[in-house]
């Protein structure tokens, strides 16, 4: 008997993804930066660097500080703006057979609505991921993303401005993820992705100063994986819309943990900084796992971890 080739594809919010592995926003540039290192048509999706209606300069250096098994960053959402993205990047990126998810943000709710509307009817963009969770900017983003009511109001506003599915990217920097996740689901978000970075600080003891000008920064990498996994498990248990798991994923085994915790798909972030091919190794490793365990589709193990111990 010949074994069936496992079906790695998945359909989320009406969009077909060839596999469940995506490059996370802020760790793959605009997607084109990956081309020297891997065939991006292997990826389930590329999630672009956060794009705003107008270009944004970002934060002054230093923007990166390494920690044990992690990285603190304070990039500050530097980006080229939606016009240049649409004119210069998207035509090139669309030549590749992968789904493109554009991460969007603004300083005000109107800004979010404006940038979302700029992608209305644009071919080649399969969904928008709404950044409700960047901890490194003074206005917008996490300022809207910590309060369930405000987040819902923003999601509703964006839904009116776009014809694309929207994914709310949630912050872990709250007491309970469930009310926030439920609130954006009620506001008709088509999916959620979590977690964005955990807020941290690094201090230079010789100079007795914080290393970052903003004092705080966002922690990512393997160090945050257990926390991310717990929050994905909590959110997935409470939601009917797809949950995309993010946080320290560096191996197929990490990715499978997120699927078992309830994620429909995963995004790989900081691991790309060490080797962007990691995403391909994860895709291969997940397929091997399916073959070895005679699994036709990961649906059969998705969310297999129970909500409560019986």
């Amino acid at each position, binding site marked *: 008997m010949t074994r069936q080739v496992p079906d790695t594809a998945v359909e989320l919010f009406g969009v077909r993804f060839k596999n469940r592995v995506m490059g996370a926003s*802020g*760790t*793959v*540039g605009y997607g084109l*930066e*990956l081309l*020297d*290192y891997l065939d991006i048509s292997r990826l389930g999706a590329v999630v672009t*660097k956060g794009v705003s209606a107008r270009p944004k*300069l*970002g*934060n*002054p*250096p*230093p*923007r*990166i*500080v*390494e920690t*044990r*098994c*992690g*990285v603190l*960053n304070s*990039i500050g959402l*530097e980006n080229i703006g939606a016009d240049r993205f649409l004119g210069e990047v998207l035509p090139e990126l669309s030549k590749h057979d992968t789904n493109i998810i554009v991460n969007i943000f603004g300083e005000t709710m109107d800004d979010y609505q404006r940038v979302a509307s700029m992608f209305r009817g644009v071919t080649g963009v399969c969904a928008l991921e709404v950044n409700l969770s960047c901890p490194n900017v003074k206005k917008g983003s996490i300022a809207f993303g910590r309060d369930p009511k405000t987040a819902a109001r923003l999601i509703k506003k964006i839904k009116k401005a776009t014809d694309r599915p929207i994914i709310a990217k949630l912050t872990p920097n709250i007491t309970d993820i469930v009310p926030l996740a439920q609130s954006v689901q009620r506001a008709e978000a088509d999916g959620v992705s979590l977690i964005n970075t955990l807020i941290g600080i690094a201090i230079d003891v010789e100079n007795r100063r914080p290393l970052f000008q903003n004092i705080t920064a966002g922690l990512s*990498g*393997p*160090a945050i994986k257990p926390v991310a996994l717990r929050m994905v498990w909590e959110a997935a248990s409470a939601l009917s819309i797809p949950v995309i798991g993010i946080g320290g994923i*560096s191996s197929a085994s990490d990715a499978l943990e997120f699927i078992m915790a309830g994620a429909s798909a995963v995004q790989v972030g*900081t691991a*790309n*900084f*060490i*080797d*962007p091919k990691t995403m391909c190794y994860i895709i291969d490793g997940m397929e091997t796992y399916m073959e070895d365990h005679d699994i036709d589709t990961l649906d059969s193990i998705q969310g297999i971890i129970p909500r409560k111990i019986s």
Partner: protein
Amino acid sequence: MKATVVSNREVSPGLFRLALSVDEKLLAGRPGQFVMVRGPWGADPLLSRPFSVYRYRPISENDGTIQLLIRRAGSGTELLSRVSPGDELSIQGPLGSGFPEVVPSGRLFLAGGGIGIAPLMAVAESLTGDLLKKTRLIFGGRGINDVSGIDDDINDIGLETVYVTEDGSRGETGTVVDILSVDLTPDDMVFACGPQGMLKAVAELSRKTGCDAFVSHEERMACGIGLCLGCAASTTLGAYALTCKDGPVFAAREIDWGNLP
């Protein structure tokens, strides 16, 4: 890609010369370009470490080898200082811009502060004929330990070299910039790498004298390949440049030194 350690020698206390067997693409790199290196040490330290290539044509090594000059400073360089021949490392490169391939009408000064000597030695070994004759190397540091360990390479390349230390323990007493400022003319050109303060002073000197200067800029870096936007350098155009892709070598006048600490 993989690189195999060919040799690793502590050439002066805390300073290591690491020879790596690498592929053709990396061997074809240009002076001033850099590599991202890590060993098989899991998630701590997490990130690869950037190093400018020190020599593409090292003496007393086989063909197909490059050398890095590594000052032991933190956890990554500590681990790299302990690798042995035969060990495998991961390496990405050549990355970034190199020093420009221009011939000044006057002299070329290679100004290196401490470990900043590394990319300048890659420039030095690439020079031939007239340009080699009109190039001078200025190698400075706080004390003799900062400017020791690579005499064999300097002799191999055969460049006229001035040593300068702040405490006078080797060569002239003073700084690289003190030496450089003696008789710089607008026809000369400076390639510099070293501490920020030194590069800022080189930029100022270049502005005053009207000679072109190019600096290899250092910034904290996560990926080295333009994915994270972490290695922003303030520029005089008001925007940030990426040290990894737009740099690490910049014209000194492109950098906004006022924004640097």
